[in-house]
């Protein structure tokens, strides 16, 4: 039988468009503008879901997404809030957490077992024996839980939007509307959001039998339309507050990150349930929910109802229900004195009996449907007087006993709240700069006062931002009576008087938790899980605080609140998912490497060729061959990932002397020098080559991974020392390649006119010349221990130069080599890699770099620390080693430990098989007394195998360095 009413003024449904849908397999029809809940309730379906733990039947509680009685699934869409989701044609809805649908759920047996399932039951009963835990976990995952995950659901990524405004107003009820208009009239750019499908808030449904509110809303909407600087966004949720007024606005399609200059919170209040036995029976609902059914969806919530109240709102609800044909059995008012306003007269005039000082002891349901409610007097101590209960037959029971502020955004912004004893709620006490609150969230309830309070907040926000609007005196009258009752809670020996509907927590659970010692609100929350369900305490936290306050004999103020965290409502993952931004850098020669079959590896932020794949060849063979080409003929490697810095100015040399350990002031133009950089604690952090181009102009390299941080730190020093020098990070502006091998000179000679002879361009010299017609900086360095030239050219000409070199080297069998061969070649020369052969504690002396540290300079970064550390001597020493047993079955690897007498004495930092040398060579940190040449030590390899190694001098290869100085 349909409970749909004839047309109601202001209804949200469009009766010209019907919508067909199914719920748990049964077909229903609603209207466009309906929610699944309103359409089902209109169709006479009152069991809309099952509770989380006891599988109790549940119907409408808040009709506002403040509870999850009506959580449903629609195909791949999980956890749909049927109270607020818009109904769509063809929707196939199913209830969650049931066996066989909401109405016939076979797991309802659990309700009868409730007595043996107290709070904490799981913790205590199932953690031993441990082996059985996975079994129990599977059982509980089946009988609890929310919806079924569809692993085939499409991946949806939603781009974010960004927006800015002067004043954001959260909540478009009477207070928020007035605030937005006041700020808008002052000239501010205003964004007004409301999570509901339409604006107006309580003006639309808390009518008290009058259409005054609806008319006011119509006027306000007209005023809004006159102000183009106000953007009105219904169906939009302000999901959280982040620093400096940064608010994620969530609508059905996406998230908009809005930066406001001021925020007005006018989010209203959540109506709170009364706690009595069976307060969750379908038919028991909040007064505001019944009014929403009436005025938004034109659904008659019940035929006959009892009204339980403790404020004026309950009386208004009684008048609203009566006006639409609902019989009112009685109004039970928790307050001994009843309602002080004229509303009480109006209720009496229409013949509704009022029971002052009465509470509901219990509701009674038969076959999943409310049939009666028992009322009895409530004592001054808040306990029910059960001597003479009165029973009322009814299929509905509406509750209006109190409100809790929707203050999540205020808490998140750092607002200090206080418990106000005239309204029995938490209200803002101290608001951070640029934050404003008005309306119910500010403890203001009378409609005129809410409008006035909104006007005040809007004016203050505009003035705060410097808009020219006159200051006004606002006088907000104090509430005549408290909108909230301090103790809307009734004990019952048989329990099932629910405090938290999401988590199926009844009053006794709180007493048990306190008895177990969890009598602090944060502890109680975690033990009972109150407020941890999908509605995050919106309907349960305030009552939980009241219960705990009474248990401990203190005020709610002393109990305090739990932390409010974003998001305010759950936000779909697809709204949050964005593109992955794992950036990497490519050198200008990237396409050349690709064409040569490069296998890529990550080097810091860069991609570098590890080696160049050849069909039918193994990596180890390729790397060996690449290295052999360099040693025997000529190879080329892209070293463009090195940091490349330009330094210019009269103090350039002095600057380098301060940031590097060596001396540079006396360098001649046209020379290069190895450079080591320390941090202030004397730890080696970077190395590179410094080249002097002219008296005032230096060019130097950093490690691939260090370029950004080194550049940053150099800028910092430069901002303090007031030297006349400028630094430019030219890493991306230059490409660099290293041409190395005995034939390097012969190959390069074909492309440049500069005299490459050993006399004219000696080892460690720098020349500026054209290579293949491109201006280049040539540095003769011993990068891999062979005759070699590092060629730096403008990035945009790099490919041309590379191609020319490859072509020039064709006759000599030039071969590109990757990072793997480079590391092997450099290891053979005993060159250390900063970050591989050093770590975050390595002092230069420990890494064999003392020759590069000139402590006779007046200052360099880290100098004082080096001096102090030198007094104590090194803690460890980097040494070269080779393995004694050639072809041992177990080869140590990087980071394997050096072990002496069962204790750690060091570790391997680098190790490789050198084909050139015919043995394994490596570098290792060892204790300072283990550095004697030829002394053996042990490395603990995989599986605990002890492998013997021997200290040998470095370089392992060409110790005299003759090859890099080779003549023609």
């Amino acid at each position, binding site marked *: 039988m349909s409970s749909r009413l004839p047309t109601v003024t202001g209804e949200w449904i469009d009766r010209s468009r019907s919508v067909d849908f199914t719920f748990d397999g049964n077909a229903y029809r609603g209207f466009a503008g309906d929610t699944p809940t309103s359409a089902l309730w209109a169709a006479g379906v009152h069991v809309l879901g099952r509770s989380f733990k006891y599988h109790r039947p549940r119907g409408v509680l808040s009709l506002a997404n403040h509870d999850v009685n009506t959580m449903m699934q629609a195909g791949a869409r999980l956890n749909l809030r049927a109270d607020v989701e818009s109904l769509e044609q063809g929707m196939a809805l199913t209830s969650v957490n049931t066996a066989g649908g909401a109405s016939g759920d076979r797991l309802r047996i659990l309700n009868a077992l409730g007595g043996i399932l107290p709070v904490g039951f799981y913790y205590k009963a199932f953690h031993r024996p441990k082996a059985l835990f996975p079994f129990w976990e599977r059982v509980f995952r089946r009988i609890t839980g929310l919806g079924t995950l569809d692993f085939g659901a499409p991946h949806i990524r939603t781009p974010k939007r960004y927006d800015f405004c002067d004043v954001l107003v959260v909540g478009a009820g009477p207070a928020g509307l007035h605030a937005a208009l006041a700020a808008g009239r002052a000239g501010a750019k205003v964004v007004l959001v409301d999570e509901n499908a339409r604006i107006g808030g309580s003006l639309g449904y808390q009518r008290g039998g009058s259409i005054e509110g609806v008319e006011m809303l119509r006027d306000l909407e007209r005023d809004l339309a006159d102000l183009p600087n106000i953007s009105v966004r219904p169906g939009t949720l302000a999901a959280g507050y982040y*620093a400096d007024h940064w608010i994620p606005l969530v609508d059905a399609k996406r998230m908009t990150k809005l*930066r406001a200059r001021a925020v007005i919170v006018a989010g209203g209040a959540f109506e709170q349930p009364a706690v009595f036995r069976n307060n969750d029976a379908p038919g028991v609902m909040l007064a505001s929910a019944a009014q929403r059914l009436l005025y938004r969806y034109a659904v008659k919530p019940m035929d006959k109802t009892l009204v339980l109240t403790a404020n004026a709102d309950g009386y208004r609800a009684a008048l609203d229900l009566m006006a639409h044909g609902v019989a009112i059995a009685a109004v039970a008012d928790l307050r001994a004195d009843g309602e002080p306003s004229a509303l009480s007269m109006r209720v009496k005039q229409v013949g509704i009996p009022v029971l002052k000082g009465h509470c509901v002891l219990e509701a009674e349901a038969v076959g999943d449907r409310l049939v009666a409610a028992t009322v009895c007097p409530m004592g001054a101590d808040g306990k029910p007087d059960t001597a003479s209960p009165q029973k009322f037959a009814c299929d509905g029971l509406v509750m209006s006993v109190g409100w809790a502020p929707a203050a999540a955004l205020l808490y998140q912004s750092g607002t200090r709240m206080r418990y106000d004893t005239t309204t029995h709620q938490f209200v803002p006490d101290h608001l951070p700069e640029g934050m404003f609150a008005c309306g119910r969230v500010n403890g203001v309830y009378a409609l005129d006062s809410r409008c006035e309070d909104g006007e005040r907040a809007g004016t203050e926000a505009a003035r705060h931002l410097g808009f020219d609007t006159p200051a006004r005196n606002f006088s907000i009258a104090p509430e005549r009576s408290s909108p909230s009752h301090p103790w809307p809670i009734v004990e019952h020996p048989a329990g099932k008087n629910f405090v938290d509907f999401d988590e199926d927590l009844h009053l006794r659970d709180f007493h048990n938790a306190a008895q177990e010692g969890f009598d602090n609100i944060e502890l109680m929350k975690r033990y009972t899980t109150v407020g941890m369900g999908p509605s995050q305490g919106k309907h349960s936290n305030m009552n939980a605080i009241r219960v705990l306050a009474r248990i401990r004999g203190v005020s709610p103020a002393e109990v305090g609140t739990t932390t409010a965290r974003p998001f305010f409502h759950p936000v779909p993952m697809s709204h949050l998912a964005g593109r992955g931004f794992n950036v990497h850098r490519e050198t200008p020669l990237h396409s050349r490497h690709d064409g040569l079959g490069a296998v890529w590896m990550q080097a810091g932020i860069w991609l570098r060729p590890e080696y160049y794949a050849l069909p039918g060849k193994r990596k180890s063979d390729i790397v060996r061959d690449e290295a052999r080409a360099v040693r025997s003929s000529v190879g080329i490697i892209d070293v463009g990932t090195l940091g490349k810095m330009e330094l210019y100015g009269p103090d350039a040399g002095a600057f380098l002397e301060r940031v590097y350990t060596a001396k540079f002031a006396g360098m001649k133009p046209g020379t290069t020098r190895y450079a080591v950089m320390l941090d*202030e604690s004397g730890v080696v952090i970077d190395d590179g080559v410094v080249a002097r181009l002219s008296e005032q102009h230096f060019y130097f390299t950093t490690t691939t991974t260090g370029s950004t941080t080194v*550049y*940053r730190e150099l800028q*910092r020093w430069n*901002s303090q020392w007031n030297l006349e020098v400028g630094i430019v990070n030219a890493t991306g502006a230059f490409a660099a390649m290293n041409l190395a091998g005995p034939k390097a000179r012969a190959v390069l000679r074909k492309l440049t006119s500069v005299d490459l002879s050993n006399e004219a361009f000696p080892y460690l010299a720098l020349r500026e010349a054209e290579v293949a017609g491109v201006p280049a900086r040539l540095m003769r360095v011993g990068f891999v221990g062979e005759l070699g030239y590092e060629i730096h050219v403008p990035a945009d000409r790099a490919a041309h130069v590379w191609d020319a070199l490859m072509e020039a080297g064709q006759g000599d069998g030039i071969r590109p080599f990757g990072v793997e061969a480079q590391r092997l070649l450099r290891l053979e020369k005993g060159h250390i890699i900063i970050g591989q052969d050093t770590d975050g504690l390595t002092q230069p002396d420990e890494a064999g770099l003392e020759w590069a540290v000139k402590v006779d300079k*007046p200052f360099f970064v880290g100098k004082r620390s080096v001096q*102090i550390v030198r007094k104590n001597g090194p803690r460890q020493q980097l040494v070269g080693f080779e393995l004694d047993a050639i072809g041992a079955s177990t080869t140590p690897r990087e980071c394997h430990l050096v072990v002496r007498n069962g204790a750690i004495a060091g570790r391997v930092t680098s190790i490789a098989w050198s084909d050139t040398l015919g043995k394994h060579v490596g570098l290792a940190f060892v204790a300072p007394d283990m550095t004697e040449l030829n002394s053996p030590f042990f490395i603990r390899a995989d599986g605990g195998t002890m492998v013997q190694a021997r200290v040998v001098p470095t370089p392992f290869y060409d110790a005299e360095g003759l090859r890099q100085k080779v003549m023609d």
Partner: protein
Amino acid sequence: MKILTCPVNGPRPVSEFAYGGEVRPMPDGATCTDREWADYVFNRSGVPGIKIEWWYHIASGTWFYAERDTVADRVIRTWLPA
């Protein structure tokens, strides 16, 4: 997300900045004791209050000072090193 005011580029989201630690005077390495130097290098004061900090605007490569109340996480002023 916080807004930080770069003295060169104006107010920008904090994701464009890197924190550089508290501004602390370096003792004269030639005259200070080992202990004074070690204190400078290794010890940081975590005492909440108003501090002068190094901040770096990454996009433009600007180092600057920010006076910040670390209790309220409020930046009082920012300026370039002299």
